[in-house]
């Protein structure tokens, strides 16, 4: 079943509303509990044309493709949009869509506090969660607190399975290729947990097993796209043993909260998430986090897979590279446009990097 077919069936058969969600951090449990299916918009497979009339050439392709998706009329089935506060460009895109484009669809904004966290940050996050619920209730009706509790638990089940997959992969006990692994992980961007949980369980069952020995790396950046890098690494026998990707492991809280109050549990999960550029995490926490991943997975180096023009990520890279090099680790920084594949030059650089870590 294609993604589109799945979404239409969710609407027709389950009566769920569909919300387009722009990157990156948001409380999906609230949406599930209100019978809304969040559909994340990261890198729709489109050629950018219409968006160029609205956005400058120096704006990243996550922002451009998201707008392109709307302008090409491919969001007709969408019942609303949610814009988490992620970066300057997405912040303004949210306002452009809400204020200027006359979409006639509800638009919601969700601001999460930025690090370094203080006592005020936790209270603000809780207030913002509850404020979002109040705003959503105007469109969707009252939230059932017991349903939210249930969805928080389901979200934690998803996180537990994902963490198990990540742990097995880091220890070389998951046979899946890089391509297959991220195809499964990324289906969480739109599948309801009722469907995502069995998929993960099945994947876990068939993929468990020792991998062929070979070099491994950690992948850092926004998302594993264009996916050509995964294919290239597979072909070269290099395993992505772990990642520090915004749309993958950076959204996995460790450990998940046991709090009975669903709002408190969501807040605890948010603050237990790994350090992230979009939350302004201090550099030393990012360095420590990367070192832990490398030590845990025995990776030989880090590939920083950047989306071109992404200031949020690019600012941290020089210091991270410097710290990794001090420890004798190999690093490779690549920046490219989404949906444009890898150039021959980038392939050559990846090959040279792999030769270094063999």
């Amino acid at each position, binding site marked *: 079943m294609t993604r589109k077919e799945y979404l239409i069936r969710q609407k027709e058969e389950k009566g769920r509303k569909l919300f387009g969600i722009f990157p990156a951090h948001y409380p999906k449990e609230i949406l599930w509990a209100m019978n809304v299916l969040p559909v994340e918009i990261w890198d729709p497979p489109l050629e950018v044309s219409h968006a160029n*009339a*609205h*956005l*400058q*050439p*120096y*704006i990243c392709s996550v*922002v451009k493709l998201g707008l392109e998706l709307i302008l090409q009329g491919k969001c007709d089935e969408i019942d609303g949009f949610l*814009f988490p*506060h992620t*970066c*300057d*460009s997405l*912040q*303004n*895109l*949210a*306002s*452009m869509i*809400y*204020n*200027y484009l006359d979409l006639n669809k509800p638009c919601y*904004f969700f*601001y999460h*506090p*930025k*690090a*370094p966290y*203080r*006592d*005020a*940050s936790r*209270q*603000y996050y809780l*207030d*913002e969660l509850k*404020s979002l619920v109040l705003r959503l209730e105007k469109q969707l009706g009252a939230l059932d607190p017991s349903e939210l509790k249930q969805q928080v638990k389901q979200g934690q089940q998803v996180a537990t399975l994902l963490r198990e997959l990540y742990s097995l992969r880091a220890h070389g006990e998951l046979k899946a290729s890089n391509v297959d692994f991220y195809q499964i992980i990324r289906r969480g961007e739109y599948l309801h947990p009722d469907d995502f949980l069995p998929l993960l369980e099945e994947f876990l069952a068939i993929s468990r097993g020792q991998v062929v020995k070979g070099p491994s790396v950690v992948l850092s950046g926004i998302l594993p796209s264009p996916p050509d890098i995964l294919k290239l690494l597979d072909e070269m026998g290099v395993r992505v043993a772990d990642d520090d990707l915004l749309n993958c492991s950076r959204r996995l809280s460790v450990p998940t909260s046991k709090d009975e109050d669903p709002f408190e549990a969501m807040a605890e999960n948010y603050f237990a998430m790994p350090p992230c*550029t979009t939350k*302004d995490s*201090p*550099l*030393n926490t990012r360095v420590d986090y990367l070192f832990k991943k490398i030590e845990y997975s025995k990776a030989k180096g880090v590939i920083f897979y950047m989306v*071109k*023009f992404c*200031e*949020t990520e*690019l*600012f*941290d*890279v*020089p*210091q991270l*590279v*410097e710290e990794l090099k001090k420890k004798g680790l190999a690093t490779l*920084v690549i*920046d490219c446009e989404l949906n444009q594949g890898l150039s021959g030059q980038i392939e050559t650089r990846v090959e040279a990097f792999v030769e270094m870590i063999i």
Partner: protein
Amino acid sequence: MSSVKNLRYNFMKDLGAPVLMRFSSLRKKRHPRKLNPDFGPALKSTNRLKEIMTRHYFLSRYAEGAKPVAWVTSGAPVELLRAFDFYTFYPENHGALCGTQKMGPELCAVAEEHGYHQDLCSYARIDLGHYFSGKTPAGKLPKPDILFASNNICQTVVYWYKALAHYWKVPLLLFDTPYNFDKIKEHDISYMVRQFEEMIPLLERVSGKRFNYQKFQEIIYIAKETSITWGEVLATMKARPAPMTIFDAFVHLAPIVSLRGLPVALDYYRTLLSELKERIDHGVGAITNENKRLMWDNIAIWYKMRDFSDLFAEQGMNFVTATYTNAWAETIYYLDVNQPFESMAKAYSLVILNNNLNNRLELMERLIKEYQVDGLVIHSARSCKPYSVGQYDLRRLLMYRLKVPSVVIEADITDSRVYSEGQTRTRIEAFFEAMES
């Protein structure tokens, strides 16, 4: 803080700086600038401005070790730091200085050699280039004891200051301002007020001074008066002919950014305002033949200020307003000495760049009407995403609603390597034609 360094700082403040200023003004008089017939007489206050800013940079060399030093973002609520007697330094102001001195490409290139991508903000690259090379047109910059950033102008400043905190190994204090997507919410204000309260112990520790609420209220009062006076300075450009140009305002902006909350800035703007009113009374315009009045959107292109000033004046076009200069006058009215924290939360979180695009559209419409603007020049600045994303639609909507001709210039604030003279000239010439029709 060292008592010897404190003594040296005070000596320089009371004796060294005045002597330097006198010497500097004498030297300038020997080389007067050639007069351009397209312009009216130069503003006399500019000499005083130069003295104030030169003194500020000069004293910064001696501040280290004598006073607690804070590096501050242009939109941060500096009033709180003033209550602890911090010497404040503004890297964005320094970036603009490097831009006007055409040092942007050189310092950016240094940062790029250290891995900072050319797509990153050029103010940040200049600042990091200074960190790695020590080069600056100001002689020497003081090492910070603390970094104070607010994301009310962009998220970029936080990424940039995080890097500074990493290199300088000093604390970074962030004032996190929720983006105003629709309407500011009560819990947004509570969050910001609590942040102020939580900052005080750290500021006390770094400065070695106790928080004095009464002193803080006095500073809030001065800051508010200064911003109001700055607003009145800008409002003089409603007159026909306008007594100054927006290029003048870009220069005279320095005290409201860098010295806000200090009496020197308030005194200066009162002097400037008085001179501008006198010019209005005598019908003295900034340019000799003001036929058309323009609005500028976004930060200045610092390395092209003189060229643009001459080019437009030659056509009888005067820039009389800008969203950028207006930013330090727009929301400061919220400041209230009786509710300093709550009012600062509003004044600083509702600034143009932290406010939704509908607010910006309405603001631009109002400025266009109040200042009788005939045309709009939009600087699409690579370095500034929150200012630039949405400009194409703003242009379209303003054209539709007010029939105002406009031009978009693709450039950068300080990195002239991304500026195309040919492309810009072609666009501006087309704009001139549209203005004539």
